[in-house]
């Protein structure tokens, strides 16, 4: 049995979307105005994605790179179905991890265990399933007794480890991972690499947003470079990372680059 790689797990077609910036002045009346319109208002809108199209075949790893604000996280949210497209469409074939950077979404007053349970129940898992995987998640994230401590007391590394572990152990067919590799020490990153290899060799599909270019190069089967909401280059990871780094050097020489 093989995974049919000719069937794209994810098809993104002419996707455009934007988000609203809340200006202090006028936001209230604008909000009231929007509320009673059938289609969203077109004012005070920052385009986040513009005419983005690409496919992700089943069993592949797509690495998404780009500067802050390039639209990488927005892209993941669109694929997960959290943000609706304004134009175009997204087609997803398979169970998707609809729990994105839960690290960001975690409630600091709740313990790690409670956060896992809350997020898991939200996406429709049962307590039986959650009891089974919580131990695995805590072990993989090396939380030890900290799993019963409030997340607010965690270090950045612990949060990142927990975030990755949650996504990986929910066992979706299509994994969306946002910045998971930027946290954690090198030993944990190695573990992440192994886990991703394991997931991928079982035919699962991964979309990975990362600033860690080296890690991305070794793991991704293709790469997508985004800039200001548009796709600049899509293809072989080595080539895309190469041109991205060339671009970064030029920009930083001009003093305009920020990661």
């Amino acid at each position: 049995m093989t995974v049919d790689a000719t069937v794209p797990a994810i098809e993104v077609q002419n996707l455009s979307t934007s988000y609203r910036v809340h200006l202090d002045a006028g936001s209230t009346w604008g909000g009231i105005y929007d509320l009673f319109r059938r289609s969203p208002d077109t004012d005070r809108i920052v385009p986040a994605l513009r005419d983005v199209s690409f496919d992700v075949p089943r069993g592949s790893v797509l690495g998404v790179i780009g500067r802050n604000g390039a639209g990488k996280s927005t892209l993941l949210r669109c694929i997960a179905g959290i943000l609706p497209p304004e134009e175009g469409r997204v087609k997803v074939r398979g169970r998707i991890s609809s729990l994105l950077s839960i690290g960001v979404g975690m409630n600091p007053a709740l313990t790690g265990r409670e956060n896992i349970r809350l997020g898991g129940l939200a996406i429709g898992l049962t307590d039986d399933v959650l009891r089974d995987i919580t131990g695995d998640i805590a072990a993989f994230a090396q939380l030890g007794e900290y799993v019963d401590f409030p997340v607010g007391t965690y270090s950045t590394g612990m949060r990142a480890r927990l975030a990755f572990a949650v996504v990986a152990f929910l066992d979706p067919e299509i994994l969306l991972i946002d910045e998971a590799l930027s946290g954690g020490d090198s030993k944990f990153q190695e573990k992440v690499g192994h886990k991703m290899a394991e997931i991928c060799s079982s035919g699962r599909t991964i979309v990975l947003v990362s600033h860690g270019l080296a890690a991305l190069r070794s793991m991704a089967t293709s790469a997508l470079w985004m800039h200001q909401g548009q796709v600049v280059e899509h293809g072989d990871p080595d080539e895309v990372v190469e041109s991205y780094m060339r671009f970064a050097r030029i920009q930083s020489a001009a003093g305009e680059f920020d990661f």
Partner: protein
Amino acid sequence: MSSSPPGTNVLREYSDVEYTFEPHDNSLPDIRAYMADVWDRRAFMVANARAEMKSPYAGTVLGDFWRILDPLFQALIYMFLFTAIRGRGGSDYFLMVVSGVFLFNFTMVGLRDGGRAIQKAKGLVLNSTFPLATLPLSALYTGFLELGPTVAVYVLFHVVFGGSVSSAFLMLPLMLCLQVAITVGMMLIFATLTVYVRDMANLLDYLLRILMFITPVIYPAAQLDALPGILHTLLHLNPLFTLFSCYQSILSGGGTPDPGALMQSAAWALVLPVVGFRFFVSRERGFAMRLQG
């Protein structure tokens, strides 16, 4: 990744789940499927309510006991004020204020927590997909949790202070159902408004206080009969007005509620949840976009 060739591990087949995400136009999803989805997430709603409740009384000496003390103190303060202003008090009046405040507390909690539920759960909303109506609805659990013990306390007061008991008491559960329905409707409307109009979050507390004063909670509804007709009509636009005057007729009056008032409450209880639900659900796909900024 390409270094581990496919086939070394067991390849697992994909399920045939397929999603298509397209631009939305504030249209309604399949309501029945949505309701089923919400019902399936009962455990989530309870967990979410418990998460919200976790902080306020944590570490206090009296702990959860505050859930009774808080509304009780409120009732005593209002009673003192009203007695001081009108120079009239007595056990009848005491029972009326306590029952009013305890019952109104359910709606108060529902609207206070439910109205802000989407913004409070911003992290979850932006990072996962689930029926968002579960967020405000989980405030109902908090409301019931506070209502339970206060009902027990009230029963005790009612007996001690010699409140009258009649067969009309059997109607109370039905009226509570009407109150829950009205609360759900208002809660969903407030929750939607809070996402679109950020000032709502600040305004909410004042609106709730106003709502309490235009509802016969701490004064007898009959007292407003002297008001000019137009004001009286305006007060009846408050969905809780007739319901609370019915509560008073039963609990303090010892009689049966006015059928007309009861019908009016039932009408609100039928219309508001439908309107609120449609309003919320047709706009929830746009929530994430507005929370992002």
